[in-house]
């Protein structure tokens, strides 16, 4: 990959906005359209919020890692926590499924809709890693 950025940050709710700013400035460098930047912000927001709310049950001093890698062809995003993990990943990814009755169960739906590939790896009591890919070749205005 041509460029790699890895941000590790404390699981404070305010850091969700900082993670969004990071993807937005990377996307701006990639010359993505505004609508694509908006979607990437939602994707990051969902993945990082899940780590804080579900993975760490809102505990505020745990580490979350956001890795962003890209070249001309694709953008790869990884979000990792060392939280409680997901016992049944297939079930968790069902639209509208949530273990929290106050939530909508749309996090994975948004990640899946806005990215071209979504992989979830999780081990109970060890943590969860979400890996997402967006193909860039068709959505970027070609400049050359």
């Amino acid at each position, binding site marked *: 990959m041509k460029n790699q950025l890895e941000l590790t940050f404390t699981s404070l*709710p*305010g850091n*969700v*906005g900082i993670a*969004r700013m990071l993807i937005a400035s990377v996307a701006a460098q990639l010359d993505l359209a*505004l*609508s694509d930047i*908006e979607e990437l*912000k*939602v994707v990051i*927001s*969902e993945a990082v*919020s899940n780590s*804080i*709310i579900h993975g760490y049950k809102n505990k505020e001093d745990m580490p979350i890692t956001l890795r962003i890698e890209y070249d001309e062809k694709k953008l790869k995003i990884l979000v990792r926590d060392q939280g409680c993990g997901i016992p049944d990943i297939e079930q968790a990814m069902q639209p509208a499924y949530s273990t929290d009755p*106050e*939530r*909508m169960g*749309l*996090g994975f*739906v*948004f990640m899946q*809709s806005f990215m071209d590939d979504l992989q979830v790896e999780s081990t109970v009591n060890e943590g969860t890693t979400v890996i997402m890919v967006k193909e860039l070749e068709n959505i970027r205005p070609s400049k050359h």
Partner: protein
Amino acid sequence: MLIEKNIQRQTLTLNLQGELDMNTSETLRQAIDTEIERRGIRTVILNLEEVSFIDSSGLGVILGRYKKLLPMGGKMIITNVPSHIYKIMELSGLPRIIEFENTPSRKMEGREK
């Protein structure tokens, strides 16, 4: 997130400004719930004109307030949704449940038909 409140009779109008995510949606939840409980509010109008970002946490709080008002005979209206915010709301199915006014939505739906 800045919340500007306006109360007329049993109608609460909230002008929201900023980002509506897990960090800020709790403030919105409390702002609405307090008025429903203390002042007997039955109509909540959410003006999203100045909202720059929304994700499923924000949508969840809006849907939750709607669900709370419904059995009380209350209602919720969402107005002036910027088009990039409306796209996210559409994916969530919210416009099929809650009433929208003055959004790019109506026009867009019309065009698609």
